[in-house]
C-alpha cells in the first residue's frame, strides 16, 4: 500500500479560479469566480452551498475534468494538468457499467492499471466485503438497490487507493437509514486510510457530522467560498450520536445563519 502523504502538506489548492459556461442563448454564465480553497493532506473537508451554485463544477476542476478559465489548481504542490491521477471521484449519478457485475465494476481501476486478473478479482472481493456486500459479487447493477450500487461505486473508488477522494453528494438519493450506515462506513474507512476527502453535499447536518471543516459556497453566479468553519467534534464519530452533541447544534446554527442567506439568494435569483 502506498504511504499516505505527510500530514500538513497541501493536497489541493485552488487560487483565483474562475469557470464559466456558454448558455443556450449564446451568452456566458460565470459559475465560479475568485475561488480560493485549500485542503490539507488527510483532511476531511465538506463543501456546502445552495443547489446549482457550482459545487460539482468545483469538484470537476479538482478532478481535472474541467479546466478553469482563470486561476490555478495545484495538487500536492504541482499544477494540475489533465486528469487528476491522484484523486478518485464518486459521482452523484449512477455510473456503474450495467453490463459488468459488481465485482467486475469494482475491479475496473485495477484492470486499467494492468493488474493481473486473479489479483484484481481477489482485491475486488475484499473491497466488496469491506463495504458490506459479501455475496453480491456476481450481481449486475440492476439487481442491486440504490444504496448497494453506491457501495459498489465507493469500493470501485477505493480499490485504486487514491490519495484524494472527491465525492459529489454521494448519499443524497439514499433513504435515511442506509445513508447513516454508509456515512459511518465512510468515516471508518477514512479513519483507517487517512485519505484527503473533499465532500460535496447540500445537507448541512451531513457536512458537520462527517468533516473536519465545512466550507460554505455562495449562491451563483460567480459563486465562491464565503465562510469556513472548523468542526472540533471528537473522533471517531458516529454520525447519529454526534448530532446530539450540544456543540453540534451550536455549530449548525452558526453555519446555517450564513448558508440560509445564500440559499434564499439562490432561490430569488432562480429564473
Amino acid at each position, binding site marked *: 500500500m502506498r504511504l499516505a502523504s505527510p500530514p500538513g502538506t497541501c493536497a489541493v489548492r485552488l487560487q483565483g479560479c474562475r469557470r464559466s459556461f456558454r448558455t443556450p442563448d449564446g451568452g456566458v454564465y460565470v459559475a465560479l469566480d475568485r475561488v480560493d480553497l485549500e485542503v490539507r493532506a488527510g483532511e476531511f473537508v465538506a463543501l456546502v452551498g445552495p443547489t446549482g451554485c457550482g459545487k460539482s463544477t468545483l469538484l470537476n476542476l479538482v478532478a481535472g475534468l474541467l479546466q478553469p478559465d482563470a486561476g490555478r489548481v495545484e495538487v500536492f504542490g504541482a499544477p494540475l494538468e489533465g486528469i487528476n491521477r491522484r484523486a478518485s*471521484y464518486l459521482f452523484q449519478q449512477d455510473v456503474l457499467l450495467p453490463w459488468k457485475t459488481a465485482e467486475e465494476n469494482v475491479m475496473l481501476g485495477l484492470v*486499467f492499471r494492468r493488474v493481473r486478473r486473479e489479483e484484481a478479482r481477489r482485491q475486488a472481493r475484499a473491497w466488496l466485503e469491506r463495504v458490506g456486500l459479501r455475496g453480491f459479487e456476481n450481481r449486475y447493477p440492476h439487481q442491486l438497490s440504490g444504496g448497494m450500487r453506491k457501495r459498489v461505486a465507493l469500493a470501485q473508488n477505493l480499490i485504486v487507493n487514491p490519495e484524494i477522494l472527491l465525492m459529489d453528494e454521494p448519499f443524497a438519493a439514499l433513504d435515511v437509514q442506509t445513508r447513516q450506515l454508509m456515512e459511518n462506513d465512510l468515516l471508518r474507512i477514512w479513519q483507517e486510510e487517512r485519505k484527503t476527502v473533499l465532500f460535496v453535499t447540500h445537507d448541512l447536518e451531513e457536512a458537520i457530522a462527517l468533516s473536519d471543516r465545512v466550507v460554505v459556497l455562495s449562491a451563483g453566479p460567480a459563486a465562491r467560498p464565503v465562510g469556513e468553519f472548523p468542526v472540533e467534534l471528537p473522533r471517531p464519530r458516529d454520525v447519529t450520536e454526534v448530532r446530539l452533541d450540544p456543540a453540534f447544534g451550536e455549530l449548525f446554527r452558526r453555519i446555517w445563519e450564513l448558508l440560509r442567506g445564500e440559499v434564499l439568494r439562490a432561490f430569488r435569483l432562480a429564473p
Partner: protein
Amino acid sequence: MRSGSLPDARWGLRATQAAVFVLLVGAWEVASRLRWLDPFFFSRPSSVAERVARWFASGEVYGHIYVTSLETLLAFLVGSLLGVVVGFAFALSPALSRVFDPYVKVANAMPRIVLAPIFTLWFGLGILSKVAFGVTLVFFVVFFNTYQGVREVDRNVLNNARMLGATDRDLLRHVLLPSALVWILSSLHTSVGLALVGAVVGEYLGSARGLGYLIHQAEALFDTTGVFAGLVVLAGFVLVVDLLVTSVERQLLRWKPPSHVEEAL
C-alpha cells in the same frame, strides 16, 4: 399462483395457434380436392408436404440450404463488421460524419434491389454477389445503431472510467464498444433477417444454387408445388435462424433488466 397459471396460458396459446394452422391448411386441402381452387395454380398441402419430404429424403435440398446459410452468415458478418467500424469512426470524428452525412442518407434511402443486377455483373453468379447484396442491407442497420450507441454513452460514465485510469483504448474496449453492442444486439433480428433477405433475393435474381434459386426454378417451370415446397423450407429455415438469434441475444444480454412490459406480464 402466477407461476401456475402462466404455463397454462401458454399451452392454451399454443393450442390455439395449432388450431389456426390446421384449419387453414385443412381448408386449403379440401378446397383443392373439391376443385374450388385450381391445383395447377394453388397446388395442395399434401403434395407440398410430399415434395418437401422427397427433397429431404433424396438429400438434394441440403446443398441449397448450405449455400443460403453461408451467404447469410457472410453477409451478416461482413456487414456488421463494416457497420461497427464506420459507425465508430463517424461517432468519434464529428468532421467525418459532417462531410459524409448526405452521402450516407442518400445511400440508405436508395432501394437496394437495383444494385442486385450490378453485383451479379461485378461478382458473377456465385455466392459473392449475394453476400455483397446482403452487406448493403445489413451495413446501414448496424452502422446507425453503432453510431447511436457510441453517441448515447453517458458523459458521467465516461468520466468515471477516465478517473479510474482508463486510456482511450480502455474506454473503447470497456465502455464504448459494449455500449454500442447493446444497440447492435437490439437490432440483431433485423440485421440477420436482412442478411437472409439479401441472400434469397440475390439467388432469386440470378444464381445456380440456394433456396431462392430453388423457388425461382420451380416458378420458371410453373411448378406451384415446387414453389410452395421451397417457401416451406425457407420458412423453416427462417424459424431456426430466428431461434438461434434469440438464444445468442439471451446469452449476451444476461445483464439486462427485464423490460417493464415483460415484468408486467
